[in-house]
């Protein structure tokens, strides 16, 4: 193990980690929005949209992110749609994450008793208002563990974005191994940086989960 190689490589990995984090954060926020929307469509059984969402969820959950990225990066240009690598990565991650988030939100919504909606409607709220102020907060608290698991899952999934030529952590490590044969150093740095990214997120997620749950139901 050559420690000088490691210390001199740290800035390159740092930059790659920031890219991983950026794709991850934007992708996760977009996934959560897509997921919330899909869950609302399914929960309220909105015709037509509901079927579209069902197809999307099956398509998204049953194809690997790697294949989805190939499709976006190499397939779409054939029909004249050319997106930069980073856009492909974010769209791909959102396409994957949206369905996972949808399922998490839906399980949360399903466990809020329907009479809670009636109780909100009986006060004169519209359904969207009731959704926003009464159903979603409760569903969110119930879904918190599944949602935070998704966040960590999606950040780990970003490790395949190097296939669309993005210099993320995996890409940088492969480069280092391929050009300098610093295999051990590269792998050590790779593991260390992923842990550096994910451990705080994981701990933060645990904390948030406890806080949300105790706020809502005090268990």
């Amino acid at each position: 193990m050559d420690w000088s190689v490691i210390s001199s490589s740290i800035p390159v990995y740092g930059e790659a980690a920031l890219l991983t984090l950026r794709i991850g954060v934007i992708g996760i926020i977009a996934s959560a929005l897509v997921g919330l929307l899909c869950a609302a469509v399914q929960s309220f059984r909105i015709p037509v949209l509901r079927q579209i969402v069902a197809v999307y969820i099956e398509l998204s959950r049953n194809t690997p992110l790697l294949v989805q990225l190939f499709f976006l990066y190499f397939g779409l240009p054939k029909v004249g749609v050319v997106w930069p690598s980073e856009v492909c990565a974010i769209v791909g991650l959102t396409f994957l994450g949206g369905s996972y988030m949808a399922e998490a939100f839906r399980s949360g919504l399903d466990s809020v008793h329907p009479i809670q909606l009636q109780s909100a409607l009986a006060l004169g709220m519209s359904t969207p208002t009731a959704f926003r102020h009464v159903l979603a907060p409760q569903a969110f608290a119930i879904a918190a563990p599944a949602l935070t698991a998704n966040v960590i899952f999606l950040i780990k999934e970003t490790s395949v974005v190097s296939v669309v030529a993005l210099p993320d952590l995996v890409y940088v490590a492969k480069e280092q191994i391929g050009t300098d044969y610093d295999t051990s150093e590269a792998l050590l740095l790779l593991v260390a940086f992923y842990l550096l990214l994910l451990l705080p997120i994981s701990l933060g997620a645990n904390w948030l989960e406890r806080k949300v749950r105790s706020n809502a139901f005090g268990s």
Partner: protein
Amino acid sequence: MNALLSLTDVRKQYPNNGVTALDGVCLDVKASEVVAIIGPSGCGKSTLLRCINGLEEIQGGTIRLGDDIVSDCGTNWRRVRQRVGMVFQNYELFPHLDVMGNLLLGPKVVQRADRAEATKRAQQLLDRVGLGDRAHSLPRQLSGGQKQRVAIVRTLMMRPEVLLLDEITASLDPEMVREVLDVVAELAADGMTMLLVTHEMAFARAIADRVVFMDAGRIVEVGEPEQFFTSPASERAQRFLNTFVFEAPHKPDADEE
């Protein structure tokens, strides 16, 4: 005097199983009147309340509130529901909000009320029902009776003209029934118009101006409480009331044999 709430030939059928829940119900409720609806389980009394504020759709008849017909297809239920408040059997407080949050949500998101004013009114109402010190408790920290009192106040916050109370003491432990009924009695004394479905016969007798007895989706008998409970006109009401009378079971003599 005109009726505040008027039902004419209201019909309701559940679409999925074809069961007729309401079979031509007619009922007029005057302002400040307290009407107790009683009857066996499944007679349609809860459904009747839920049709009045549009939680269930009716298939025939009309429902009038003041001068407005509220049961046609163009009904703005959001407006009607502010005029007709409903309290549920299981309180249905919002578990993620504290007591004050529960009370202020309706005024805030439905009526866009002034926050300071609404808070002041909420505190006054809480004081009145004896929960002045629980404004910042979460629903799970309250007893059933306390939750139901908060639920009543939450409905009152919208300044309804009519209150629908759907078996509001049915889920309570017996020792908590009283504190909730006291609140209802006080509202009645203040002149609140109320339609209540209940199994508390003594309470119905004490508080109601009129008792409505329903069976199989129809109103069988309407009467003054004293007259109804002492000598009901219909045989079905008589039989129903008898189910609340307990007689010591006949004990066979131990030595007999």
